[in-house]
């Protein structure tokens, strides 16, 4: 039962991550894959604040989220200078650079990780209670993002994504929109990080590598970008399906790579079979139309973002 609760908690946390990532990537059109580093910043900040400064855990988690949001300004400023592929590559450098700092400073526990993190909830029904908290937060995050993108500000975000020059001509400040999107998306990632830290009680830098970026990215792509429920379904599918083979009771040396194979094969299948995602807006991701079919001579389509 503990395994099921942990899996469901992971699904809830990934829903927060995928939805907040979709706000930046799908709605904002800001191609950055550094989301896991903000999870790490939120998780480490929250854990360290509660461990060394005696700050109540709930407040530590919130402060961790604020810390991640502030740190996102570094990447947001980069997005003011470059976009598309360049921003994507810059975000990799940003993520790995901060990860190197986490790995090399002593107070984070270095490469061996940070342990003895206090638990948010104690007692016999710890996992069930935590699951309820995570599901409530995930639902709140999904609805918050839905509320933002469906409103006036959402239209400004869409305008910034589709035609930044036109938006600026209308008197809107695209720079502040970019910084706000990054701060909100990354702050929510930091919140998920704090929740993660105070449930699993152990953090290591390896949990926030590029592979983790690929995982969150694929949840958004498989579920469908720019939709409320796409990242939710993506998170559910990508976390739950590979876990299902755990019931086959295979040795760990086979189980772990087999889970990885299943997950990567699933992503590749969706990329080719349903590139717009399960719930995504049609033609959001590709132009599979009468006009474009069969033309193989061009390289990757260079959209506004490169």
């Amino acid at each position, binding site marked *: 039962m503990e395994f099921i609760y942990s899996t469901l908690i992971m699904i809830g946390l990934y829903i927060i991550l995928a939805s907040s990532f979709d706000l930046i990537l799908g709605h904002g059109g800001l*191609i950055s894959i550094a989301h896991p580093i903000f999870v790490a910043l939120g998780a480490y900040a929250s854990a360290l604040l509660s461990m060394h400064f005696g700050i109540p855990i709930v407040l530590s988690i919130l402060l961790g989220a604020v810390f991640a949001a502030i740190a996102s300004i570094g990447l947001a400023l*980069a997005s003011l*200078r*470059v976009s*598309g*592929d*360049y921003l*994507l*590559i*810059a975000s*990799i*450098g*940003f993520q*790995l*650079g901060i990860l*190197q*700092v986490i*790995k*090399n400073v002593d107070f984070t526990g270095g490469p061996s990780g940070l342990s003895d993190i206090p638990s948010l909830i104690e007692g016999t029904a710890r996992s069930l209670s935590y699951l309820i908290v995570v599901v409530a937060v995930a639902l709140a995050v999904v609805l918050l993002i839905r509320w933002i993108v469906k409103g006036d500000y959402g239209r400004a975000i869409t305008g910034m994504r589709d035609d930044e020059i036109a938006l600026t001509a209308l008197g809107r400040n695209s720079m502040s929109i970019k910084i706000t999107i990054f701060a909100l998306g990354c702050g929510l990632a930091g919140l998920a990080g704090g929740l993660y830290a105070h449930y699993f009680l152990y953090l290591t830098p390896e949990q926030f590598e*590029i*592979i983790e970026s*690929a995982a969150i*990215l*694929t949840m958004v*792509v498989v579920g469908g970008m720019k939709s409320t429920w796409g990242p939710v379904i993506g998170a559910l599918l990508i976390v739950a399906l590979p876990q299902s083979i755990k019931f086959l009771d295979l040795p760990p*040396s*086979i189980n*772990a*790579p*087999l889970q*990885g*194979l299943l997950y*990567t*094969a699933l*992503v*590749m299948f969706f*990329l*080719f079979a349903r*590139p717009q995602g399960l719930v995504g807006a049609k033609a959001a*991701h*590709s*132009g*599979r139309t009468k006009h*474009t*079919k*069969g*033309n*193989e*001579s*061009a*390289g*990757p*389509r*260079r*959209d506004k*973002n*490169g």
Partner: protein
Amino acid sequence: MILQIIWTSITSSSYYILFAVSFALVLKVTKIWNFAQPGFMTTAFYMMYWATNNLSLPIPLSLSIALIITILASWAVDKYAFGALRRMKSGGFTFFIFTLIFSEFVAYLFTLLFGTEPFTVFPNIFSPVIPVGGIVVSYWDLRAVTITGILLAGLYAFLRWSKPGRFLIAVSNNDRLAELYGISSRQAYTLSMVLAGILCTFGMYILGTKIAVHTHLSLSLILFAVAATVMGGIGNVFSAAMAAVFLSLLQGFSVLIIPSRWQNLLLYFFFFMVIITMPSGFLSFVRTMKGRRE
């Protein structure tokens, strides 16, 4: 000591040069940030390891097997995966996701087959050394520099003087115009991937005869290649090689000032700053500034 650092940095950059050139070539011709390259690198290494250690074949034969399989893999990825994505008019971001996931798929596949334990191509990686003018030079150093030099010279000659090589350059400059002149951009894409496969295989041979390789190592190594490509200036294959040497020297000399554990941070910092401040590449930036002064 300084000469020794320079020599060690240059020899250590040999495989990085091959990975960077391979990455830059595919990016130049196909406009794809080919994160599938670690997948080819992993395939090349494990095929070589398997043929040498499980089939007890001599290294030229093992290398040939690895070369054939890696070339086939790169050809297949270009034909069936990139081809399909091009037909679907996918954006650069979809290519990025596919290539990254493909490399992960390959890493998991080889973890399933060979486990997580790191291996070297030969059980013994000891290489005899000779002192040359106060510098310690190993046989591995000489082999690495020779192979890299030959491959780079060969690639240069191929791109400059052979017909398919010139077609490759034409497609990389303007694929639509090249098509009008009867050059198949499709074939040029495939050729660039095949060349990348060859460079990666030799790069993994050099690497695998010095350090132990595990299934996820290539994914970390590719970041150095990306950094060198960015610094060299996107679209400039041989500048990527120069940037790889520069980065290797930078890392080598950094140990005199900062602890070695911070070396990677220096790399990523440089990488991030260059792409933000000089997206056309550090070397292009230097050339532009020089031109302005003149």
